[in-house]
């Protein structure tokens, strides 16, 4: 059984000009939402996470080791920036987001506000 499916759908509100959109997985369970994002090449100190009002912004700058004077021959990752914006729904607690960033994979845990936790409704049979 799940709650409303309106949570954190990929609603890119801002125009992501000049940035790559990182692929994400969003999984919801009874107590909150877990988001995984692939941000390869972004060091920890160049990753920025922001929760403002009900908007979650993930941004990161790519830094690659490359010898000087290297000429690109083929580039599938063609921009040095990642950016993705999500709208959080009301029952999520934006103040209690926890983040873990390891080898280019960001794991965010957004818990549901206490009042929004799943309540089981008993069905009375008369």
């Amino acid at each position, binding site marked *: 059984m799940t709650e409303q499916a309106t949570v954190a759908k990929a609603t890119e509100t801002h125009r992501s000009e000049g940035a790559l959109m990182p692929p994400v*997985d969003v999984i919801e369970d009874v107590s909150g939402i877990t988001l995984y994002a692939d941000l*390869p090449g972004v060091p920890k100190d160049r990753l920025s996470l922001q929760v403002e009002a009900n908007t979650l912004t993930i941004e990161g700058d790519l830094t690659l080791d490359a010898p000087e004077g290297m000429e690109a021959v083929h580039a599938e990752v063609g921009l040095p920036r990642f950016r993705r914006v999500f709208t959080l729904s009301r029952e999520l607690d934006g103040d209690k987001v926890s983040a873990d960033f390891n080898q280019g994979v960001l794991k965010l845990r957004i818990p549901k506000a206490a009042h929004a936790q799943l309540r089981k409704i008993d069905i009375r049979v008369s």
Partner: protein
Amino acid sequence: MIYKALFPRDVLAELERLQRDMQQADGFLPSIRGLARGGFPGLNVGSTPKSVEVHAFIPGLDPSAIEIQLEKSVLTIAGERKSNMPAREDKSTVHIDERFAGKFRRVIALPDDINPDAVDAQYRDGVLHISIQRHEAALPRRITIQ
């Protein structure tokens, strides 16, 4: 068959042409294996007069789980990325599922002048960086006129 080039405003055709030009500019002649776009991991290839640099964007792996092979001038990067999707019996819902999971393998044909004994591979922040030296003889030399 209608050629894309007949439509000068076709952005994709322009991009392809640009890519072709770039490949031919630096000893990267179109290879029989091609260099198909897309797939996992994403690849960037660059070159300097002394080396060929390959960046593979494979976040979230244990470096020991990535297999790199270089046979003559064909480079293969393979491995597996485990899925983090919940088990079915879990009471959870998957809203977005975009990240790659499963086995991957990508093959790139490198120029012939590389030295297969001088390869260096590093994994940092989810990027595998492979640097392959080129043979000295292939370095362009300035010829002085007597």
